[in-house]
């Protein structure tokens, strides 16, 4: 196809004005996202402590990470343990609460607001501090246990068996955003489906298994991916509530990375850790996407 010079020039002009319009974003992206991203990739192959220039060390950081840093593997283990329990638990609670709130009754809007409230303060330091009080040696949980005659002397946050579970519980309690998305999804399910199912004699459980869950799979899929990522980069609660202790059982990946970076000033090592984390998250997301064809149901596919 032949395009006249004038038209081509006009096209170029169009392109240019387009780029100009998005230039604030472009500048921001290049300066604040792309450049640091590339810099961290470079740093991951160096020994860099901020104060002196980075020194190229090749694969040294990764070698150390994989073969010579038991704390690294402990942090990997802790993070996976956390994600494996916290993510399904949070999704389960979110779905349950969403179903509870998806009814027509008076004052339901107020209930919704109430149940969403914890998530507004959600990932904040204040909640973490509160959690520390609740599970402290002289905290709420132990006080309640004493009220009903139990010893109530467990040191939840300092006992390697329980510390991580206080954080998992916190995750379950911060269900808000997932719950909201579930709620929106539940509202999309046509009520005719339930009506005809109940005419056919299907009980509540059957309706849940055969209508609600299948119709909700796109939402579950989305929530699963988002929450998995959130679970793998968990940081604040571990820093504030347990400080990674005891015995490194809550020294999550992101926390350990932060420690290496800002307490030991091993920026190169920390950058390497960040890239490994990114690769793992990308890999896991790809895996979920790949399997999604088998279990995610889209109405519009017209099957």
């Amino acid at each position, binding site marked *: 196809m032949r395009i006249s010079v004038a038209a081509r020039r006009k096209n170029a002009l169009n392109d240019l004005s387009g780029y100009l319009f998005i230039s604030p974003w472009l500048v921001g992206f290049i300066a604040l996202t792309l450049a640091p991203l590339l810099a961290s990739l470079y740093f991951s192959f160096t020994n860099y402590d901020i104060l002196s220039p980075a020194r190229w060390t090749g694969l040294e950081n990764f070698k150390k990470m994989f073969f*010579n840093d038991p704390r690294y593997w402990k942090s990997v283990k802790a993070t996976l343990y956390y994600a494996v329990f916290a993510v399904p638990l949070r999704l389960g609670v979110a779905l349950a609460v969403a179903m509870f709130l998806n009814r027509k009754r008076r004052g339901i809007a107020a209930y919704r607001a109430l149940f969403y409230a914890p998530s507004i303060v959600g990932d904040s330091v204040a909640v973490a501090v509160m959690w520390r009080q609740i599970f402290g040696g002289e905290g709420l949980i132990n006080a309640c246990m004493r009220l009903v005659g139990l010893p109530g002397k467990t040191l939840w946050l*300092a006992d390697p068996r329980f510390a991580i579970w206080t954080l998992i519980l916190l995750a379950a309690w911060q269900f808000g955003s997932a719950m909201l998305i579930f709620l929106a999804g539940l509202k999309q399910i046509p009520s005719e489906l339930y009506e005809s199912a109940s005419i056919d004699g299907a009980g509540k459980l059957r309706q849940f298994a055969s209508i609600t869950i299948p119709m909700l799979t796109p939402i579950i899929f989305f929530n699963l991916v988002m929450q998995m990522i959130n679970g793998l980069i968990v940081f604040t609660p571990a820093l504030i509530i347990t400080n990674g*202790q005891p*015995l490194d059982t809550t020294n999550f990946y992101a926390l350990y990375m932060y420690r290496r970076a800002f307490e030991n*000033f091993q920026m190169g090592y920390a950058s390497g850790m960040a890239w490994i984390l990114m690769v793992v998250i990308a890999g896991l997301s790809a895996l979920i996407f790949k399997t999604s064809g088998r279990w995610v149901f889209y109405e519009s596919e017209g099957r």
Partner: protein
Amino acid sequence: MTKRMTAALCAAAFALMSFGAWAQSSQKVELKIAWWGSQVRHEATIKVIELYQKLNPNVSITYEFASFDDYWTKVTTMAAGGQLPDVMQQDYSRIAEWQKRGLLEPLDSYVSSKTLNLSDVAKPIIDSGRLDGKLYAVSLGSNSYSMMLDVDAFKKAGVPLPAQDWTWNDFEKVAMKIHEKLGIYGIGGGFEVDELAWKSTLLSAGKTMYTADGKNLGYDQSYDRLLVDNLKLLQRLIKAGAAPTYAEYLASFGGSSNNVQLDAIVTGKSAIEAVWSNQVVAVAKAAGPGRNFAVVHLPRLKKGGTPGNFLKPSQFFSVTSQSKNKVEAAKFIDFFTNDLEANKILNAERGVPIAGKVRAALKETAEPVNKEIFNYLDRVSKDAAPTPPPEPSRHADIRNNVYVPLIREQVFYGQITPEDAVKQLRAKALEILLKP
């Protein structure tokens, strides 16, 4: 908007701008100062800064403060961006690293011109800030680790206060006895937290953790036994209930929160606590009025032997090489060191003042606890191990990634024997130290 209003606004803006230019030309010197510490220190330091500004109206000072760990994150980032404050607090364990990177300004010329007057300071104290023959830092006070004793608890238990040259054996007996009589802990937590057990037992044996060049451990395998013995001693105390388990320490005594209010000795749950001497004041303050405390040397390995104590410059002030007002910065440090009023406000919270006149004046007016510290430092200066060389820059890595997880956690959660832990400590510390 009318035309006239616009014109008026423009005029106003112009006037403001020119005023700004004028203010700048009046040579207002701007200084920035940064330190770490506790709330007590922040308040006192800010008061001194205000006093300085009042006496020197041409100087305007901004400041930043943080806790120890946050402080280093902050200043390191500042250094990378060329934004370092003019005066920064420095630590004995970090100063070598900063000096090596050329971030600190040598102060010798200011000292010889008496801009920074150190004529009232003993030479060893001045020299603690000397690296490669040049002075890079001025000590803000002298400090030493100590055992803080709750005198009333000792009386109640009928246990005499330990003598200056008590041994670790004596220490164990005292702690056990107090626990037997009163049911409280003999020693509160925190004892195993710092490298105290590691460092002080070596000092007491005439050794140091690292060689002077910081490239190797300063002791051979035959000395590993010292740390093993010390850890075992603590394990015995914990088993007997005379010291809190590490979990109890974490959960109940502010382990990770650094909250003095929760210290076992403050809440009366323990009769002894290992603290840096400059922190004694804060701990006593948290305990409130009506309590009596004494301070004694760390126990030593054998009677009449070298103590595990050494005299440490608590922290320093340094002028950074990125400062634009180095002379003014030096003047401020001079004020901080020699001014009597300023030091009355600071109240020896950074350690016993280094200037002789200031020290003498403060000692006279001091409250009982402060007096105890002054006397303690006098005793230590006559009976201490030689001050070990500053820790090498790799010490932070060894401490955070080897010592703490291994000794502090695995040993006290019973996951590993002291023997194995100490063996691993040596191997892994060497690995970090010997890395090119």
